């Protein structure tokens, strides 16, 4: 994959990152976000956060399976967009919905498992977002990687939160959960070793991502 494709991928990531928020704000401010915009915005931002979280967790396995290291630079951004939407989600819930009513919030968060798990997920994502810069990477050295493994916990917790917020039918959250477990499973040593062999099988698929000009894989990672 050429540098041009890498840049396009990055630009695409940023567009995909901001578009849902822009669409939501426009819909809300023009009165087109249902008759219950607070709930719609809460659900939408939460769902978007989970989508970005899943995507960020998918980058490493994509590399393992297909040898597509070119996707790695967008991993950090996918994680940051997951945090952005989680922050929007939490802000709407605490500020707009509950009007920062601490008594109500305390009841909602401490007494009800789904809000509690949601709050825990956000508290995990917060330090990851804050330490996502290269400066923090240098400062924390080995510990940076350890700290950022918390993302593996955030994925399942977010899914549990998502499932518990449903009225009864949790088939979609279960599907998301299975996907996340698969993505996490592909990180386990032996599984990873086996999966990395698989990459040589679907050559044709891989060729799709190889620059047609040079015919070789650009492995440079910024």
């Amino acid at each position: 994959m050429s540098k041009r494709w890498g840049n396009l991928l990055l630009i695409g990531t940023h567009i995909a990152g901001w578009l849902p928020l822009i669409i939501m704000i426009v819909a809300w401010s023009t009165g087109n976000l249902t008759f219950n915009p607070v709930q719609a915005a809460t659900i939408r931002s939460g769902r978007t956060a989970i989508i970005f979280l899943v995507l960020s967790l998918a980058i490493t396995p994509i590399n393992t399976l297909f040898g597509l290291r070119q996707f790695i630079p967008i991993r950090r951004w996918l994680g940051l967009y997951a945090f952005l939407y989680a922050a929007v989600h939490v802000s709407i819930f605490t500020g707009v919905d509950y009007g920062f009513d601490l008594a109500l919030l305390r009841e909602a968060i401490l007494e009800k498992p789904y809000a509690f798990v949601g709050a825990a997920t956000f508290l995990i994502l917060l330090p990851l977002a804050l330490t996502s810069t290269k400066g923090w990477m240098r400062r924390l050295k080995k510990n940076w990687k350890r700290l950022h493994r918390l993302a593996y916990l955030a994925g399942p917790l977010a899914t549990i939160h998502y499932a518990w917020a449903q009225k009864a039918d949790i088939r979609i959250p279960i599907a998301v959960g299975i996907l996340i477990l698969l993505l996490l499973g592909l990180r386990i040593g032996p599984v990873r070793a086996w999966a990395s062999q698989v990459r040589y099988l679907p050559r044709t698929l891989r060729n799709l991502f190889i620059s047609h000009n040079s015919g070789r894989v650009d492995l440079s990672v910024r």
Partner: protein
Amino acid sequence: MVPIKSSEITSEHIYVARRGFIKAMGFTAAGAFLAACAPKSSPDPIDGPTPVAQGGMDELGDPLNSFDAITNYNNYYEFSLDKTAVARASRDFQISPWTVEVGGMVRNPGVYDIDDLRTKFAQQERIYRLRCVEGWSMVIPWMGFPLKELLAQVEPTSDAKYVRFETVYRPEEMPGQGSGFYSWPYVEGLRIDEAMNDLTLLATGLYGRELLPQSGAPIRLVVPWKYGFKSIKSIVRIDLVDEMPVSLWMDAAPNEYGFYANVNPDVPHPRWSQSSERRIGETGRRDTLPFNGYAEEVAYLYEGMDLRVNY
């Protein structure tokens, strides 16, 4: 870019007329379609009479929700899980002809035509709060008649302890009924004294108009002191029975949705609090009232009962 010549631009009066023509074509076609498959006129979302309610607020002084909000934001899982998609998904639902079969432990079982129900029982406006188990609420001016009037007609026997209601089962028209997650058709139930309470309404309209399909046309239950899901829609069967009916929601998640489902701020849903709610049209939250504000009328029905057990 080649500039468009001003002579090529359609002048306003022409395109307005053209639009009018196209619209008229559409209405004619729609009219022909409706005439072909609906012998009795069904309420038309476009041409129906202006929605008018006699009252402007509930007895607590809160204003009515708009006709638009009521008919475009509601749950009806038979059509869609998305509250904003129900109206569209139910547009072609056939609500005429329609009969309701009333039977079970009664002396005078019968099959009632919807038009007979509308004329036999005086239709009255009832402005009720509707509290959804999801934590939102509306104020709705229903049209209908008390269920007790119909029950008086069919005369329940002394063995009858509960009333069981059933929604129509038409998976070809109700895509949600194809979902295997729930045990269709929708079933709900009331204890007979709850059914005989004057608040319990069989609604056939709202805002002075006949119900639209998305609101549970042509006839639905309204039990204002219970969570919205108890107010079963598009009823085709009412049976008097001696055992507590198992509702669709009890069947789907028995530990979360009970038979009584009374609005109660002190009994949380196992996964979320029920102590507050959002009135549609408002941004913040308001306290949820015991029995949705109808405690005076109905609290006696549950005297001596542990409402945490009988949720």
